[in-house]
């Protein structure tokens, strides 16, 4: 709840639309992690930076916590509202402010969608490279907050590698510009630090992205393999051959079959694993590059090999991969999408361990994998109406993250920690390391008002979480959201 005094002060801010009606507020009760919902007591939609600043100052001076939200497509609960805080929607900041074809940059407001940037600069022969699967809806501000990836990270990097400058607003309303007019500025790299900070350090209010020339030529190769080991070895062989594909994706049998049933992309149903390899470059080199990679894939034991070089055929092959999540959603009432990264050399062992857990919990799992960069997305199939299945899916998910850590990986490659993985942070980091995170937070937001309870667990929470394992997973604080 917010006090009537705060609410009425917020009402007086010009250009701040307040959503008080419960039926309209309900839209904001969760982000893409729908398993956790919290009705926000109040939603503010500022229409100007002045309004945003006024709202922040008011909340700051009264100790009211704040959660920023873009399109609400995040998968880890980073934008889940607080019971006692203001949810601030930044979707109205949706203008592209400047496109500079010479510097190859675009300066945009945080609510501009990822795909809208590439669309707006296409006529200048440019594109914005990071392409999370939600790019049609997700906002660039949210991309910065999560350091979003996509299928082209191996060659083009994450959001971090494609942003030149940011304007941020701190919890007290102070506005700062990070990243200078050039490519280096003196002092600590706060621009890097803001990426993936999940709305805990500051609100992103303007983003200058780096654009790239649209490649002259693109081709996609699809190879089927009779086991995942062979496919993983093929990925290694392509990279060993000195090729840096624009995208390199793997799907396992269940994911292939679900996708093929759903969109009829022409996937080989007999394959245990499928690789999609996108190559781009100049007209002069693409044919030779494609031949070289095909030879590598064949030598690595590909049972089937298809090339799609025209746009329509490429789109068809990608459609299956991009529809993999909803496709899996058709074969089970619910699925739980995991997001760990592992050193790729351990892929076979990790998949075997996941299969073992799948049998242990009696829940099927489909795997899609950004193979080039080791980012694994196991999709655990379950039925949320069956509370026992829900519990098992949750335990299975925790085990998957533990497996990723065991093999030297991380609990989140691109979806963020949010609320979802906050307890697993206690496994990945020591108390000492967590204390470093808290120190950074205190420098940006000493009052702790921005997105509290997300991303970085308190040491107390970790102590409690550690104790939970002793009691065989029985939850100590059932009132705390955990998924």
């Amino acid at each position, binding site marked *: 709840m917010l006090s009537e005094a705060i609410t009425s002060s917020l009402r007086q801010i010009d250009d701040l639309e307040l959503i008080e009606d419960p039926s309209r507020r309900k839209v904001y009760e969760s982000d893409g992690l729908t398993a956790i919902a919290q009705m926000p007591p109040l939603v503010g939609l500022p229409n100007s930076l002045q309004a945003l600043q006024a709202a922040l100052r008011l909340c700051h001076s009264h100790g009211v916590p704040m959660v920023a939200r873009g399109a609400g497509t995040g998968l880890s609960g980073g934008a889940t509202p607080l019971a006692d805080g203001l949810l601030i929607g930044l979707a109205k900041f949706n203008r592209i402010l400047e496109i500079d074809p010479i510097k190859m940059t675009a300066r945009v407001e945080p609510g501009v969608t990822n795909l809208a940037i590439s669309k707006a600069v296409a006529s200048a022969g440019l594109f914005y490279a990071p392409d999370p699967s939600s790019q049609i809806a997700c906002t660039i501000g949210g991309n910065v907050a999560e350091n979003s990836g996509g299928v082209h990270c191996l060659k083009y990097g994450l959001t971090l590698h494609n942003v030149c400058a940011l304007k941020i607003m701190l919890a007290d309303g102070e506005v700062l510009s990070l990243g200078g007019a050039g490519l280096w500025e003196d002092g600590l790299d706060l621009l890097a630090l803001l990426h993936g900070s999940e709305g805990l350090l500051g609100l992103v209010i303007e983003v200058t992205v780096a654009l790239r020339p649209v490649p002259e030529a693109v081709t996609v190769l699809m190879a089927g393999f009779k086991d995942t080991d062979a496919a993983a070895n093929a990925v290694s062989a392509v990279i060993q051959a000195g090729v840096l594909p624009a995208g390199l994706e793997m799907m396992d049998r269940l994911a292939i079959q679900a996708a093929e049933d759903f969109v009829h992309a022409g996937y080989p149903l007999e394959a245990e694993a499928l690789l999609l390899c996108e190559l781009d470059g100049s007209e002069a080199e693409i044919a030779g590059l494609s031949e070289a990679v095909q030879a590598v894939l064949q030598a690595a034991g590909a049972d089937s090999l298809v090339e799609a070089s025209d746009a329509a055929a490429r789109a068809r092959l990608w459609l299956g991969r991009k529809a993999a999540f909803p496709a899996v959603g058709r074969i089970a009432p619910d699925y739980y999408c995991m997001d760990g990264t592992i050193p790729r050399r351990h892929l076979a062992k990790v998949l075997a361990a996941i299969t073992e857990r799948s049998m242990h919990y009696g829940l099927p799992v489909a795997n899609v994998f950004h193979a080039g960069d080791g980012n694994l997305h196991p999709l655990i199939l379950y039925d949320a109406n069956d509370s026992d299945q829900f519990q098992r899916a949750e335990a299975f998910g925790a085990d998957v993250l533990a497996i990723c850590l065991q093999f030297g990986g991380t609990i989140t*490659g691109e979806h963020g920690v949010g609320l979802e993985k906050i307890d697993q942070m206690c496994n990945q980091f020591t108390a000492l390391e967590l204390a470093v995170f808290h120190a950074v937070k205190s420098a940006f937001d000493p009052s702790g008002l921005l997105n509290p309870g997300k*991303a970085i667990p308190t040491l107390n929470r970790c102590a409690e979480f550690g104790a939970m394992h002793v009691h065989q997973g029985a939850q100590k604080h059932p009132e705390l959201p955990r998924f």
Partner: protein
Amino acid sequence: MDQSDVLQRVVRAAISQRQVVQPGGGGTKGFLHPAAAAAVLVSTAEHEGVLHYHPDELVIRVRSGTRLIDLQATLSEAGQYLPCEPPSFGAAGTVGGMVAAGLAGPSRPYVGGVRDYVLGMKLILPSGEIAAFGGDVMKNVAGYDITRLNVGARGSLGLILEVALKVLPIPEVVQVYGLTCDPSLAQRHMLAQRRLTGLSASAYCDGVLLVRYQGSKRAKAAFEQALGQGFMPVSNAGLAAVRDLSFVHTEHLWRWDGAVDAPVTGRLVAMDWGGALRWFASDVAPDIAADEGVITWFRPGEGILPALTPRTDGVGRLQQRVKTALDANGTFIGYPALRPSS
């Protein structure tokens, strides 16, 4: 060999004696701290060696004292390289020094800087304890990016023990082309050539514009054709000189970081990064309009050190708050003041 324990003991001793620690490596970039006070230099030079290298995963992890030339030789044997091509100020330069200095070479605008290739780090914190951030994988968003915060921090937040780096395959062809011209014509070419496929450097020094192609053999002819008349193949030496700042001069060296299309003014010594980085040699700060870029001091000349001040803008104050929050007792040397006093 592993010197973590030794280094940790030295840092802890400095903490107990209330001495400020200045992390160092091969000692080739000590000039980056122009006004280092009575800090204890703690060198990682003996803490060297490759911890693991998996060429097919494009990841290598090394101890911070590993010399850059050794790293480069290891990568080269596997047909790979470090794309941020850090400058070399001597053979003793280390990986830890590269990361702490955060200086990237001519490829910076095209493939990224040092921080774009750093994946993980182990370091001695201001408390004297050892912590690890990031990892050995390319995608990792767990926790704040403390790894990249330490890139270019000049040892102000900790002493780096290990670094995991992303590396890339060496391109099939690397060729530099030169064109003799004046600085403003050089800038016009730089701006016109920004979109060339395979462009990996665009710099200007000693009256010559230097443009580098890297990519496949097949696409090289198209690049040459797009360059146009007058460009001749030249050796890598000129570009290496711009990277390593091996110009002969007696004055202080200053850098200007700004917009590629800002007018070329002043008596510049060199331009790099397609015009986004410009070098000036003078005993006093060069008089360049500040609105499209920032001037900072870089390297001493023969004259007395000019008066320099830390950043005092909001970002500078926040940077200082971060430093204070992470190193409340001032275990490590502060980030140097680099801006000319007005």
